[in-house]
């Protein structure tokens, strides 16, 4: 019972903090609200016996939100992150869409005759995950790795304005590199 109450309470927290993301008046606060929402869900996942995944979610989101906050301040030069602001369009449509979506989903969730549970959770959840990753689902994880490579490459390509040829010259022989601000190890 207590577990139920806690679970629902966490859910309410997750929803409300999620909503807060778009209500609070600065980006930094929005970031934190999002983090709260994630943490709440992460705890819920823990409730659902997925300790490993739950922890991963929590840790990852805290880190990510920290990055995001820094990013807000650093890259968005005008520094809107700390200033109250509202940048919203088509608010009515958005509200309508969201509400409709929710009603549709909720109706479905409540009306559907959910099937009974198939099987029972393995005794060692995390171990089972590991075995699945090394077994039937190996391909999935194997593909995730090129995706990560791709993300790194693509992210750098998009984000970095300067290439190695800007730094080291067309033949990569220019030393020291031509950087706008000197830095790095040993400088």
């Amino acid at each position, binding site marked *: 019972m207590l577990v139920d109450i806690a679970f629902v309470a966490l859910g309410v927290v997750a929803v409300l903090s999620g909503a807060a993301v778009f209500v609070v008046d600065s980006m930094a606060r929005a970031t934190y609200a999002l983090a709260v929402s994630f943490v709440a869900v992460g705890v819920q996942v823990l409730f659902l016996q997925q300790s490993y995944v739950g922890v991963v979610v929590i840790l990852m989101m805290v880190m990510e939100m920290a990055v995001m906050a820094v990013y807000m301040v650093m890259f968005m030069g005008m520094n809107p992150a700390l200033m109250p602001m509202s940048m919203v369009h088509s608010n009515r449509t958005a509200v309508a869409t969201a509400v409709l979506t929710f009603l549709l989903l909720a109706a479905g969730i409540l009306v559907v005759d959910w099937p009974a549970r198939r099987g029972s959770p393995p005794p060692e959840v995390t171990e089972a995950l590991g075995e699945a990753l090394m077994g039937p*689902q190996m*391909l999935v994880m194997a593909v995730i790795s090129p995706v990560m490579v*791709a993300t790194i490459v693509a992210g750098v390509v998009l984000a970095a304005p300067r290439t190695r040829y800007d730094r080291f010259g067309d033949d990569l022989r220019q030393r020291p590199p031509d950087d706008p601000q000197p830095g790095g190890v040993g400088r």
Partner: protein
Amino acid sequence: MDSMAMRPALLLPEIVLFLGALAALLGGSFLPRTRQWVTRVVASAALVLAAAMAAVALAGPTAVAMEGSFTVDPSTGVARLVATLGALVVLALAADEIDGSPRESETYALLLLSTTGTLVLAGADDLLVVAVGFLLTSVPLYGLIGITGTAVAAEAAMKTYLLGALFGILLLSGVTLLYGVSGTTSYAGLADPLAAAPRAVVAAGVVGVLGGLLFKAGGVPAHFWVPDAAQGAGGAVAAFLTTVPKIGAVVAAYRLVGALPDTLAWPLLVGVLAVASMTVGNLAAYAQTDPRRLLGWSTVSQVGYLLVPVTVAGRSDLALPSLLLYLAGYTVTNLAAFAVTTAFPRRRELSAYRGVGRRYPWLAAALVVALLGLVGTPPTAVFVGKLTTTAAAWDAGYAWLAVLVLLNTLVSLFYYLRWIAALYARPTTEHPEDGDPPAPWSRWTAVVTAGLSALVGVGSGVLWAVATA
């Protein structure tokens, strides 16, 4: 045959491509800017090798790898061949456009990674593999689109990314729902539990997954990024993103609907989306003045045609071979059209093509073949594809779909003809770039691919035999 074995050797083409991407990436970082063509050679070699392996695998029997999550059958084989060869053609186009650009090797790496994703999608026999395949195809695309760093490229990348993210989430939601009610993600075990599961959940899940695949394919309602990306990205990249990822997505969609139970009217849904795609694409293409944007819209409509055999999957023997044939024909034809635009990178208005017919008859002829091919004029490959897909639709009792395909073909004629008409119109003096000679690699690529598109049509019997093997 032991279906529960790993057999990673069956995934050799994908592995080769991934390794090729890494090699290109690493090699590029040690090469002077003007000698990055070496990485192009490396990438080409990887593609050729992968194609060869795919061909070998195609000759072999159908097999499943990675404990049933990946199938190597004729569909995979044809998709692998077409995708790798298509990517090879894109590399040829890139030889003009980005030769010596600072991001050249990264571009090749991303191209190869995305191609790998397409192959994964094409062979995926498991919802989770579809999900990761989706990611692997999409993520490099965002990078490729924005790689030139221009304002329009940035905008196109932003839109593609945001749409991709949304549809990725929908895809994952769909997978979650389907997994929830069936307890598995493997196609092999999906049909029976789904037939017994609550229809609403299955419907929502299928729509989610299908939505994701439609994003990759560029069909309605996830088509918004296609014309933007085609216009905003570089020529070679535009050629790539309107062609290669589709191959995997459409084949994946075909596999997906094959695993669905008959309790759901999914053929109707796919059919309606197909019609929506072809109609919206054709109508919207009508008034375009930028050739690449026009081609972008045209691919939206082509996806509509490609979805026709998906609609009738399992209901007509013609469905699968016609799909593969259409894919092959479409790929080569669309690449030919894009090759012409990369041959004239500065002609970004249809009117700028005035007089090309007289000055560069071969290139103009290639474009004519490509455009008429896209219309579906015999004997080009797309015609055979369109014919057989239409026949398949009719054969399966979807005569209305066949009729709509033909009607849409008529509408499409308008805008393709506008371009052709411009080619042979008298040149005007207002376009100073008229003096630009066409880029050599693109030029020959255009001619070769256009010829190939006719050849594939004429030799479609052979391809058909392969596809039905």
